[in-house]
C-alpha cells in the first residue's frame, strides 16, 4: 500500500466562509441540501422506499409461485386486468420480476451501501468538511430520485411495466410493443430511468474519487485510510467506468425504440405477425455492453459491504483486521478482474465458444482474492474478544452467506457446468446469496453501526438481535433450496411450472414461499426499529462503540460543518488500533496525539 502523503485539510478560511453562509430554511437544509450527511440520509431513505417496494413485489411473486391457485387479497383492485380474481397473469408476474430486479440492483444495492453510507461517512472518516463538489453531490441524488420516479411511473402506464427482466435483453426490449405487453411505454420508461440513474452515479463516483484524493486531513495517509473508505473509493473508480458504458448503451437502446435505429435489432424479425422494420443490429452487442457494466455492478454492490465489514468487525472483535494491506490489495485485484469476466454471463449466448474458456479463467481466478478476504475475516475472529452487538452479528452473518454464495459461483464459472445450470434457480440462489443477501447484511451492519452517528440515537439492540436471528435463518431457508431446484433443472423466470419434469419441485417452491413471507415479516422488526429509534431511541454518545475512526470523534449527530471551524484534527494512527492500551480503553483513536517515542 503506497504511503502517499495526505493532502491538507480544507483551509480554515473556507470553513469560516461556509459557516457564515450556513443554509437556513427547511428546503435548503433538508431537501436541496449541499450537506453530504443530509444527502447520504436522502439516499438511504430512497433505498428504503425502493427496498420496501421491491420486497412487496417479491412477496407477491413468491406467493403466486407457491400457491398459484390462491387469490391474493386486494390484488384485483390494484390490477383489475392483470389479476382477475386475485390471480396474477404471466405478464404481471414478469413485470413484477423486472421491477423487483431493477429496484433491488440499482436503487437498493447500489444506492444504499455506496451512495448512501459512502456519502454520509466518507467525508467524516477522512476529516473533510464535505464532498469535493457539493452541488454535483446534490444533483447526483436528485437525478437518482427522478430516475426512481420515472421507473415507478411504469406501474401506471397502459399495459403496465416492462417484462424483459433487469437485464433488458434485446430485441425483446428493443422492438417495442410488438414484443408483448409492457414492452411499449413501460420499457421506454425503464430505459430512461436507468440512463438517468447512470448520470446520477457518474456524478457521485467522480465526487467520491476527488474527495478521497484531495480532502483528506493532515496525516490521513493512504495507509491510515479506514477500510470502508478504501472500499468506497475503489467502488467509485469501478462505478465511473461501469456506468460510463451503461449510459451510452441505454441511449442506443432508447434510439432503437423511439428513433428507428437498429443497434441491437437484426434484419428479418417477425413479431406479432409483423416484419420488423430494422436491419443490421446485433442482440449480442447489447449483452456485451450490459454485462461489461453488469458484472462490475455485482462488485459495486458488494465491495462497499467488504469495506463496511472490515471496518466494523475489528471494532467488535477488539483487534485489528488481519492483513490490512493484503485486504486492500485484494480489493484492487477484484476490481480489476471484475472487468475481465463479463462474458461468463454469455457462455450460452452464441458468442464464440473459445471465448467462453477465456472468460471462465479470470472468473475462477477472482475467487482467489475473494477467498483470501474471507480468510482474513475468519482469521480476525480468531483470538478476538467478540462483542455481539447487532452490527457485529450482521458482519459474522455476512461472512457466512458470502462463503455460501461465493462457493456456488464455482459451478457457474465453468462453462461445462453452466451448460446445465444456466437459466435455472441455481443462478437465482447464487446471486441472491452473494450480491443480494451478503450486500444486505453489509447494509444492515452499517445501519446498526452508524445509525447513532446519523440520528444521535441508538437502535434498539434487542429488536436488532431478534431481526438478525430470524433473517439469518430465513435467508438460508429461501436461497439454499434454490440451488437444489436448479440442480433438478427448474427454470427461472417462469410464472408457473407446468412442465412435467418440474412437478417434483413444487413442494420446495411452497417451502421457499413460506420462508420468504416469514423472512419478509422479520424485516418489519427492522423498519419498526428504524422509525421508533429515530425519535425515541436512547441518546447516542459521540463514540458508543469505542471505535477509532474520525467520525466517532465528533458529536452524534455531527455538527453541520463536521469538525467545527478548526477543521478536522490531524491523524497519527491507523484505522484499527484495537487490543492496545489507549487513553480510553483498549483502543487508540486515529486523531489521538502520537505516542511518544520510547527510548
Amino acid at each position: 500500500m503506497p504511503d502517499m502523503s495526505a493532502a491538507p485539510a480544507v483551509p480554515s478560511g473556507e470553513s469560516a466562509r461556509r459557516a457564515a453562509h450556513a443554509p437556513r430554511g427547511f428546503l435548503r437544509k433538508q431537501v436541496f441540501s449541499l450537506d453530504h450527511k443530509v444527502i447520504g440520509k436522502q439516499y438511504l431513505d430512497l433505498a428504503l422506499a425502493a427496498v420496501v417496494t421491491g420486497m412487496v413485489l417479491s412477496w407477491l411473486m413468491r406467493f403466486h409461485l407457491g400457491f398459484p391457485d390462491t387469490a391474493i387479497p386486494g390484488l384485483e383492485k390494484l390490477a383489475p386486468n392483470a389479476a382477475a380474481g386475485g390471480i396474477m397473469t404471466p405478464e404481471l408476474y414478469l413485470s413484477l420480476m423486472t421491477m423487483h430486479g431493477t429496484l433491488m440492483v440499482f436503487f437498493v444495492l447500489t444506492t444504499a451501501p455506496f451512495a448512501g453510507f459512502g456519502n454520509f461517512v466518507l467525508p467524516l472518516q477522512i476529516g473533510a468538511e464535505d464532498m469535493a463538489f457539493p452541488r454535483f453531490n446534490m444533483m447526483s441524488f436528485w437525478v437518482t430520485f427522478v430516475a426512481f420516479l420515472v421507473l415507478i411511473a411504469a406501474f401506471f402506464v397502459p399495459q403496465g411495466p416492462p417484462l424483459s427482466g433487469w437485464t433488458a435483453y434485446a430485441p425483446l426490449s428493443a422492438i417495442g410493443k410488438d414484443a408483448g405487453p409492457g414492452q411499449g411505454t413501460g420499457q421506454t420508461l425503464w430505459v430512461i430511468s436507468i440512463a438517468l440513474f447512470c448520470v446520477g452515479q457518474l456524478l457521485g463516483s467522480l465526487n467520491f474519487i476527488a474527495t478521497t484524493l484531495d480532502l483528506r486531513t493532515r496525516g490521513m495517509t493512504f495507509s491510515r485510510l479506514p477500510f470502508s473508505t478504501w472500499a468506497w473509493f475503489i467502488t467509485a473508480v469501478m462505478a465511473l467506468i461501469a456506468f460510463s458504458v451503461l449510459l451510452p448503451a441505454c441511449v442506443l437502446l432508447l434510439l432503437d425504440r423511439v428513433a428507428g435505429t437498429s443497434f441491437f435489432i437484426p434484419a428479418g424479425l417477425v413479431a406479432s405477425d409483423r416484419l420488423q422494420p430494422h436491419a443490421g443490429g446485433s442482440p449480442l452487442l447489447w449483452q456485451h455492453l450490459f454485462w461489461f457494466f453488469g458484472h462490475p455492478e455485482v462488485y459495486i454492490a458488494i465491495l462497499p459491504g467488504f469495506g463496511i465489514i472490515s471496518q466494523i468487525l475489528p471494532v467488535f472483535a477488539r483487534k485489528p483486521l488481519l492483513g490490512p494491506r493484503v485486504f486492500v490489495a485484494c480489493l484492487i485485484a477484484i476490481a480489476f478482474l471484475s472487468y475481465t469476466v463479463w462474458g461468463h454471463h454469455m457462455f450460452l449466448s452464441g458468442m464464440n465458444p473459445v471465448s467462453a474458456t477465456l472468460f471462465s479463467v479470470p472468473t475462477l481466478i477472482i475467487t482467489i482474492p475473494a477467498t483470501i478476504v474471507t480468510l482474513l475475516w475468519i482469521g480476525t475472529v480468531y483470538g478476538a474478544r467478540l462483542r455481539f452487538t447487532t452490527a457485529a452479528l450482521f458482519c459474522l452473518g455476512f461472512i457466512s452467506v458470502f462463503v455460501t454464495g461465493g462457493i456456488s459461483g464455482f459451478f457457474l464459472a465453468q462453462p461445462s457446468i453452466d451448460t446445465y445450470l444456466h437459466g435455472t434457480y441455481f443462478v437465482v440462489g447464487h446471486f441472491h446469496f452473494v450480491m443480494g443477501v451478503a450486500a444486505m447484511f453489509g447494509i444492515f451492519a452499517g445501519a446498526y453501526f452508524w445509525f447513532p452517528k446519523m440520528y444521535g440515537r441508538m437502535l434498539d439492540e434487542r429488536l436488532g438481535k431478534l431481526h438478525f436471528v430470524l433473517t439469518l435463518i430465513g435467508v438460508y431457508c429461501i436461497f439454499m433450496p434454490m440451488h437444489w431446484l436448479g440442480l433438478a433443472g427448474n427454470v427461472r423466470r417462469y410464472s408457473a411450472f407446468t412442465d412435467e419434469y418440474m412437478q417434483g419441485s413444487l413442494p420446495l417452491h411452497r417451502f421457499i414461499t413460506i420462508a420468504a413471507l416469514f423472512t419478509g415479516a422479520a424485516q418489519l422488526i427492522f423498519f419498526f426499529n428504524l422509525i421508533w429509534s429515530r425519535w425515541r431511541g436512547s441518546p447516542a454518545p459521540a463514540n458508543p462503540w469505542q471505535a477509532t475512526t474520525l467520525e466517532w470523534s465528533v458529536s452524534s449527530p455531527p455538527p453541520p460543518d463536521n469538525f467545527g471551524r478548526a477543521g478536522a484534527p490531524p491523524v497519527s494512527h491507523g484505522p484499527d488500533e484495537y487490543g492496545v492500551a489507549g487513553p480510553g480503553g483498549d483502543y487508540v483513536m486515529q486523531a489521538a496525539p502520537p505516542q511518544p517515542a520510547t527510548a
Partner: protein
Amino acid sequence: MGKLFAAIVVVVTLVSTAVFLSHAWWMPADISVLGVGIDRQMTETMISSGVLFVISQLVLAAFVWRYSERGDGRPIRIFPGGAAPMVVGATLLVGAEIAVLSLVGSKVWGGIFLSRPDPHALQVDVQAEQFAFYFRYPGRDGRFGTAHPELVDDASENFFGLDPANDTTARDDIVSASLVIPVNRPVLLSLHAKDVGHSFYVPALRIQQDFVPGLVIPIHFTATKITKQEIVCTQLCGLGHYNMRAFMEVMPEKQFEQWLEEQAPQ
C-alpha cells in the same frame, strides 16, 4: 448470541450438506454421450466446493463460539503466522482447484461446442418463436428450402417462410412441432429465432443453448436412450415464456425412418 449464531451456522451447514448428498433434488438421468463428462465435472466440483463450504462454515462457527468477550481481561491473539499463510494457502489450494477444473472442464466444453459434428449427423433446422419451437427436416432431397421472413405466416402454418411454389428444395421439407430423432445417431441442430431471444434446454441431454435473432447457431449431440423429454425455453421471451415447450422423442432408427415417411408432404 455468539453460541446461537454458531449453532445456526452448524445446523444450516449440516442440513444443506445432507440434502446435497442425498440427491433428493438432482439432475435427471443422463441420456447423452457428452453428459457423462458434464456429470463427472459436476460431481468433482460438488466434492471440492462442498469440502470448502463445510470447513469454512464450521471454522467460522467454532471461532465465534470460542472467542467471545468474557470480561476476563484476556489478551487478544493474532492468527498464527498472520495473513501470509492464508495468502499462500488460498492461492495454492484454490489455484490448484481452478487449474484442474479448468483443464478438465475445457475438454468437456470443447467436446460439446468446439468439436466438429459428425458429417452424417441428422440435420434439423430449429426455429424458436413466441412461444413455440418448430423443427424442420430437409426431406428426401437432403436440402433445406430457403426461408423468407416476409413469407412467415403462422395462420397458414408457414412458420419458416417457405416458398414451395418457386423453391423446389422447399417442397419436401418436413415441419414438425416435436423434435423426433433416432437413438445413438448424431444430431446437428441449427438454431435460429423468429422474433426475440429464446433458448433450447433439455436437462437430461445436459444441453442448453440460446437462440439469438440474426444468428444461426449449430449444436450437436447424440441421444443414447429411447425416451420422451420436454424441451423448455430458458431465455426470457415474453408473457408465454413459462409455457414455451416442445417434446423430444428419441426412437429406434427404423421407427424414426417410418415416422419421416409418414410426415413427408404428399
